[in-house]
């Protein structure tokens, strides 16, 4: 008869191993699901109306929160940035500070996080509920591939909307920085824009920011559609899936941001 201590330890290890293998299995399943979605995206493009409808629900309806958040983030950047810069007599660099922070980092990342929590969770809940109310099964029964008809349009809508939202976030933020810096505080307007234009490069900064937001869009929407499709078809199952979407997407965005920033912006400093 084994005494309790090693037995408990063995059981915990077993449980840990089980969790690890099940997570890896799930990741593999998610990857296969992703590949299948991409392969069967023909319908999403041939009947583009389906995708347009999803762009409306994912992108257009997220506009308000993106624009307002962008404005506030830009304004705060303006305030905080001015406070720090004027200590070194460099308050004219405010334009550079606001624009580079937004275009390189805050635009793609914050817009991505907001998109994940608003549109990502909505997509997961919608697909999960369709699964729970047997609508997916009904579609399969009518010989219509639910992944081509339901999942793929939502995926591509997310990938298309995300960079647009990030760009609008950055633009709104720069405007907010301008409002606070130039109009409110009194930084020289000419210096604000000219220093910004001298330092922000279209290829290095803006384009890289757009690339980041496309990568985030792919990651977030993939997670959202997968969690919805894989949800347990009950109320708790759908709620768990939406929570997982938001958490996993947010972590993925932050991790990918680090990787992409290291690749794009350190100019070889990170060996």
């Amino acid at each position, binding site marked *: 008869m084994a005494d309790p201590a090693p037995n408990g330890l063995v059981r915990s290890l077993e449980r840990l191993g089980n969790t690890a293998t099940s997570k890896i299995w799930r990741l593999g399943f998610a990857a296969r699901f992703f590949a299948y979605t991409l392969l069967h995206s023909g319908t999403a493009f041939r009947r583009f109306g389906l995708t347009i409808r999803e762009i409306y629900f994912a992108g257009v309806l997220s506009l308000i929160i993106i624009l307002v958040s962008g404005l506030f983030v830009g304004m705060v950047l303006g305030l905080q940035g001015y406070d720090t810069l004027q200590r070194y007599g460099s308050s004219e660099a405010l334009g550079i500070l606001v624009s580079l922070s937004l275009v390189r980092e805050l635009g793609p990342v914050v817009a991505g996080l907001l998109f994940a929590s608003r549109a990502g969770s909505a997509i997961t809940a919608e697909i999960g509920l369709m699964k729970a109310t047997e609508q997916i099964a*009904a579609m399969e029964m009518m*010989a219509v591939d639910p992944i081509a008809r339901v999942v793929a349009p939502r995926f591509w809508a997310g990938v298309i909307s995300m960079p647009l939202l990030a760009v609008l976030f950055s633009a709104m933020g720069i405007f907010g920085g301008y409002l606070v810096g130039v109009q409110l505080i009194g930084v020289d307007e000419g210096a604000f824009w000219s220093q910004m234009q001298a330092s922000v490069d279209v290829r290095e900064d803006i384009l890289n920011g757009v690339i980041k937001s496309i990568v985030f869009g792919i990651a977030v929407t993939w997670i959202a559609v997968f969690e919805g499709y894989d949800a347990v078809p009950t109320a708790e199952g759908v709620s768990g899936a939406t929570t997982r979407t938001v958490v996993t997407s947010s972590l993925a965005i932050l991790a990918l941001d680090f990787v992409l920033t290291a690749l794009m912006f350190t100019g070889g400093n990170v060996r």
Partner: protein
Amino acid sequence: MAATPIVELDRVSFGYDAARPVLHEVSLSIEPGSVVGIMGQSGCGKTTMLRIIAGWLKAGAGRSTVLGEDLARLDDAQVFALRRRMGMLFQFGALFTDMTVFDNVAFQMREHTTLPEELLADLVAMKLEAVGLRGAAQLMPSSLSGGMARRVALARAIALDPQLMLYDEPFTGLDPISLGVIARLIRTLNDSLGQTSIVVSHDVEECFGIVDYVYFVSAGRIVAQGTPAELRRSSDAFVHQFVSGAPDGPIPFHYPAPAYVADLAGAGHG
């Protein structure tokens, strides 16, 4: 004259894993043009049988032949093609909540045919007329009652005139009037469209009223079969308990538990 059965299950077994067998050597045969009931308690395996017939689950053993095709030998694309000749009514309708009633019924036509919209409108009107809901074409599923939703789902399922109709618990949760309507629709549509129908249910009265033949399932096995009249006269204990709705019989009232007196006495001493 013996016609080829539309559905034939020959000693089909199925289990989600080896430890929990759901169906055990089930054999049934469904004649074309008939309405057949598969009845039994909740969890006895009748819905699983329906899913095997629909090609969702692959039987572990035995031969399943549907519409002349051996299900075990079909790949995914062929199963999809086979489903075009089948229709299924889900327990709660499973209407697409983001489309109107019209769009729901027109769904299959739009996905699988290239019919022009005017012709589509006429066809949808005909299907809705058959279930008595032509006037509700522009409503959204959320504003329909349970019975109406199920009727729309029925119209949607027969949109492409399938040869085989599968009904998963069509009578659950309906008021008496809707019950009568659905039951009558199942029979009339079957006869007028030349279909074959399988009705999975545990509502004895409604089912017996419309079916030609019944299979009784208990714990994954077929325990009785026959026409409704034969079954009403049956002396089989299970059939008798089911048909009369007696609380105790071969299906016990009590869930297995230790002896009552011992349980009470034990609880007293803690």
